[in-house]
C-alpha cells in the first residue's frame, strides 16, 4: 500500500463517475440464457473451458514456485485473466490467427498447442521449437497460428492488421485476434493499428485486456478516457466493454466480433475488464504500489471461482468433480515439468542459426 507521505500521482483524481478500473455488474445465467448464448452444447463448452482454466491456474502456481527455486528463469502469471484466453480460444476457429500479449499462453494451449511443448519453452531447452532463444512466456506456436511475440508493448497490433489484410486479399476464411493490455493503448502501434484497420475495413478483433495495471501504473494514469472501449469511436469502428472474468460473456463477444470480421463487417475493439490477481511477473512485488483493496475486489471476481459456482449451481459439477479435475491438471503439469527438466540445453550451434535463411552471420 502506498504511503501517504509519498507525493500524489499527477493527473486528474478519479471521481465518482470514473469507471476506468471498474468491473461490470456480474451477470447470472440460467439454462435458457446459456442455450441462447452458447447453443445446445453449452454445458460441454463450459466444462471444456473450466478444464483449461484450471490447467492455466495450476501452471501459474507451479511455475511461480519453480521460478522461486531457480528452476525456470522468469514467469508472467495470467491468474485472474484465464477466462479471456480460454473464451477467445473457444470462440475462434483453426483458420483464425492470434497475436498474443504477455498473458495469453493458455490461448495457444486451448487452441491445441501441446502442453509439453510449451513447458519445454518455459525451460528454454533444446526441444523448445524456438531453441530457448526467448524468455519464458514468449512461446511461438505456428501449429495453432499463435504468432511469436517480442517484449515490446503494442508492436503486435499492426502485425495483426497485416495478417488481416492478407486474409481479406486472398478471401481466406479466417480473421485475426490481437491481444494487448491497457498500457498498450498509450503506445504508437495501438493508434496506427486501429486506424489502419478502420480505413482498410480489415477482419481483425482488437482484444484489449484491461487488467488495470501496467506493472505499477494504474489504468487511471494511463488514460483520461473513462471507458477504454470508447477509443474505438476515434477510428470509426465498434467498441464494446466486456466482463473478462465471465467466460460466457467472453465467448459470446469474441464469437460475434469474429463473425462480423469474417463477414466483411470490419474490425472491432473489445475491452475485457479483468483483475490482475498476481504480480506483473516473477520480477516485481505489487505490495510496493497496489492498495490492499484491489486484491480483495479481485478475489470477488476470480474467473475460475465464478465459473465453478455457475456449473455447480446448474448441477454440472460438484466438489468431487472439482477435486478430480484439479488432480488431472496437476498430474499433466507435473508430467510436462518432469519431461522438460530431463531435456538437454540448446546446442551451441543454435546461437547462430535462424538469423538469416541461409547466410551465416559474420563469423568472428
Amino acid at each position, binding site marked *: 500500500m502506498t504511503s501517504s507521505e509519498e507525493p500524489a500521482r499527477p493527473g486528474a483524481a478519479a471521481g465518482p463517475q470514473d469507471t476506468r478500473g471498474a468491473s461490470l455488474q456480474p451477470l447470472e445465467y440460467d439454462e435458457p440464457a446459456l442455450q441462447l448464448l452458447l447453443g445446445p452444447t453449452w454445458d460441454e463448452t463450459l466444462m471444456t473451458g473450466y478444464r483449461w482454466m484450471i490447467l492455466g491456474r495450476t501452471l501459474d502456481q507451479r511455475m511461480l514456485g519453480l521460478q522461486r527455486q531457480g528452476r525456470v528463469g522468469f514467469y508472467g502469471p495470467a491468474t485472474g485473466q484465464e477466462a479471456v484466453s480460454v473464451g477467445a480460444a473457444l470462440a475462434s476457429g483453426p483458420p483464425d490467427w492470434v497475436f498474443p500479449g504477455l498473458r495469453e499462453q493458455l490461448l495457444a494451449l486451448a487452441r491445441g498447442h501441446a502442453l509439453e511443448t510449451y513447458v519445454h519453452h518455459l525451460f528454454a531447452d533444446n526441444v523448445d521449437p524456438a531453441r530457448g532463444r526467448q524468455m519464458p512466456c514468449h512461446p*511461438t506456436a505456428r501449429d495453432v497460428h499463435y504468432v511469436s511475440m517480442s517484449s515490446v508493448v503494442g508492436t503486435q497490433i499492426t*502485425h495483426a492488421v497485416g495478417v488481416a489484410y492478407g486474409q481479406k486479399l486472398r478471401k481466406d476464411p479466417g480473421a485475426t485476434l490481437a491481444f494487448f493490455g491497457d498500457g498498450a493503448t498509450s503506445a504508437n502501434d495501438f493508434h496506427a*493499428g486501429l*486506424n489502419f484497420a478502420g480505413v482498410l475495413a480489415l477482419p481483425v478483433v482488437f482484444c484489449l485486456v484491461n487488467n488495470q495495471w501496467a506493472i505499477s501504473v494504474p489504468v487511471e494514469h494511463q488514460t483520461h478516457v473513462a471507458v477504454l472501449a470508447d477509443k474505438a469511436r476515434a477510428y470509426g469502428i465498434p467498441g464494446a466493454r466486456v466482463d473478462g472474468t465471465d467466460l460466457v460473456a467472453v465467448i459470446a463477444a469474441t464469437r460475434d466480433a469474429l463473425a462480423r470480421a469474417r463477414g466483411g463487417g470490419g474490425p472491432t475493439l473489445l475491452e475485457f475488464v479483468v483483475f490482475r490477481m498476481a504480480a506483473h511477473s516473477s520480477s516485481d512485488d505489487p505490495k510496493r504500489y497496489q492498495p490492499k483493496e484491489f486484491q480483495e475486489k479481485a478475489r470477488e471476481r476470480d474467473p475460475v471461482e465464478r465459473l465453478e459456482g455457475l456449473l455447480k449451481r446448474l448441477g454440472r459439477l460438484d466438489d468431487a468433480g472439482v477435486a478430480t479435475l484439479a488432480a488431472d491438471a496437476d498430474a499433466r503439469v507435473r508430467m510436462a515439468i518432469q519431461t522438460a527438466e530431463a531435456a538437454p540445453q540448446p546446442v551451441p550451434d543454435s546461437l547462430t*542459426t535462424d538469423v*538469416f*535463411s541461409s547466410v551465416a552471420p559474420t563469423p568472428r
Partner: protein
Amino acid sequence: MTELNLVQAVNRALAEAMRADPDVLVIGEDVGLNGGVFRATEGLYKEFGADRVIDSPLSETGIVGAAIGMALYGLKPVAEIQFLDFIYPAFDQIVSELAKFRYRSGGQYPCHVVVRAPYGGGVKGGLYHSQSSEAYFAHTAGLKVAIPSSPADAKGLLTTAIFDEDPVIFLEPKRIYRAVTGEVPDGDHRVPFGKANTLRQGDDVSVFAYGAMIHPVLQATDTLLAEGISSEVVDLRTLVPLDEAAVCASVEKTGRAVIVHEAPRTAGFGAELAALLAEKCLYSLKAPVLRITGFDTPFPYALENLYLPTPERIAHGIRSTVRAG
C-alpha cells in the same frame, strides 16, 4: 537492354516482380494514384489496383508493422518509406520485430519484408530529407542492407531483394535517381547479394564506396589517373552481407585503402571496414586507412556541398594516402 535512369529501373523492378508473382505488393504514403513522390511506383496503381498498391495512412510504424503482418501471412510486401529521414517511427518495428522474427520463433515465422527508402544528400533537402543512416541497419543482426549505385544494379538488387527470404533494407540514392542513366537488362535481372563490384582496376590504392558516392569517387579517380595514380574502385553493393573477400583481396593487392561515405564519420560503416582491414589485412597496408565522410553534425541545408564528400576532397584524400607510404 533498355536505357533507363535509376528511379525508372526501380519502377521496372517493382512492376516486373508484381507481374511475376501475385504475392508481391507495395505499401506506403502516396505510392498509389500519385505514383510516389519520386515516381518510383508510377503506373503500378493503374496496372495492379488499389489492393496491391496501397496508399497507407501517414504512419511509418503502421506501414512497416502492417507489412510485417503481410509477410508473416506469406505475402511479399515492399514497403516504401518516403524519405529515409522519416523511418525512425518505424525503427522499433524494424529493429525489434522485422529483424528478429525468424530467430526468436526458431524459424517458424520467417518475415520477409523489403523496406525501400530514398536516402542521402545533394538535393537541397536539409536536415530531414538528406540523411544517410545505413549504419543503424547494418548494425542490427537479421537485416540485409543493399544500396545500388547504377540503374542496372537498382533493378538487379531490388529484384533479388523482393525474392529473397530475409528482410532487406533497400536504400536508394535519390540524388542520382535521374542524374544517372545506363543500360538495364530486360527480364528477370538479379544481382546477387554479398558480391562487390570492382568498377575500376588499379594498383596504388583501393577506394571503397557505395550508392551515390560512387560517382564523385569515379570522377576523382579518373582525374588522378592523369597524375599517375591508379585507383581500384570497389562498389560494395550490399553492406550486409559484406563481400569481405573482395575488400581484403583488393587491399592485399594495392596496400592502401580509402573509404568514402556521406554518413557522419563516428560509428559509420567506414569504421566497420577499417576495423575489418585492421583485423585481416594489417600486414598488407603501406599507409593508414583513410575515411572520407560527412561531418559529425546534423545534415546542413545551405552548406550541403561542404558537408558531402566532393571529387576534390576525395582526390585530395587519395593523393595523401598514396604519398603517405
